[in-house]
């Protein structure tokens, strides 16, 4: 069968492929939720990287690292989810929504502009 040293190389290469895909989605991601999802996958795959490092270096303490990364990653994901839910966003999706109904914003802009024009006159 395949020796563990070869298998660990293949497994780490495949996991790094997943990490790179997550990083590309983190950069591309059109909305904030995409970026949070890719951060979630990054932390989860880092736990897998920690478990593979434990086998690669034959040091079992790397599993503690995986446990800590898992804990912190979950807290970070929950915090980011609460954040994007509770804050007004300026993502491209919101801009699309604004351009779809321009009537929502034009009265405010006119009311802001009109006193300034009155002052100029």
């Amino acid at each position: 069968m395949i020796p563990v040293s070869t298998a660990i190389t293949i497994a780490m290469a495949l996991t790094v492929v997943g990490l790179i895909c997550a990083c590309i989605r983190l950069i591309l991601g059109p909305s904030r939720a995409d970026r949070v999802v890719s951060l979630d996958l990054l932390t989860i795959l880092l736990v897998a990287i920690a478990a593979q490092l434990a086998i690669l270096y034959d040091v079992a303490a790397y599993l503690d690292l995986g446990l800590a990364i898992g804990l912190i990653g979950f807290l970070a994901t929950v915090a980011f989810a609460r954040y994007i839910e509770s804050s007004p966003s300026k993502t491209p999706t919101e801009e699309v929504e604004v351009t779809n109904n321009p009537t929502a914003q034009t009265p405010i802009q006119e009311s802001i502009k009109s006193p300034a024009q009155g002052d100029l006159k």
Partner: protein
Amino acid sequence: MIESLVSILLIAGGLFAAIAGAGLLRFPDVLMRMHASTKAGTLGVGLSVVGSAFYFTDDMVTTKAVLIVLFILLTAPVAAHLIGRAAYRTKTPLWEPTIIDDQSNPSDQPKAD
């Protein structure tokens, strides 16, 4: 015997990690991307950690591995649910061919907190 089992578990875990990354990159929608990354990512991490537990064959290491797998199995659905709810409530656009949106009826809309 155990060595080949460890090899199979590790390569399967790596494959699922790569599949999770590919799904995250290729799917057209936040919810679909989340579906790929959460399920395949959880399975990939679980297989890798179980593989390391079989490699060390030590009580303490096995305990830690079981803890990691249990924790990820518990928290990954919760995190995905929270992100999905946040994405839906901030009106992140769905995939264009989507035909059913169960929350689109205004009387069913959840009230804002």
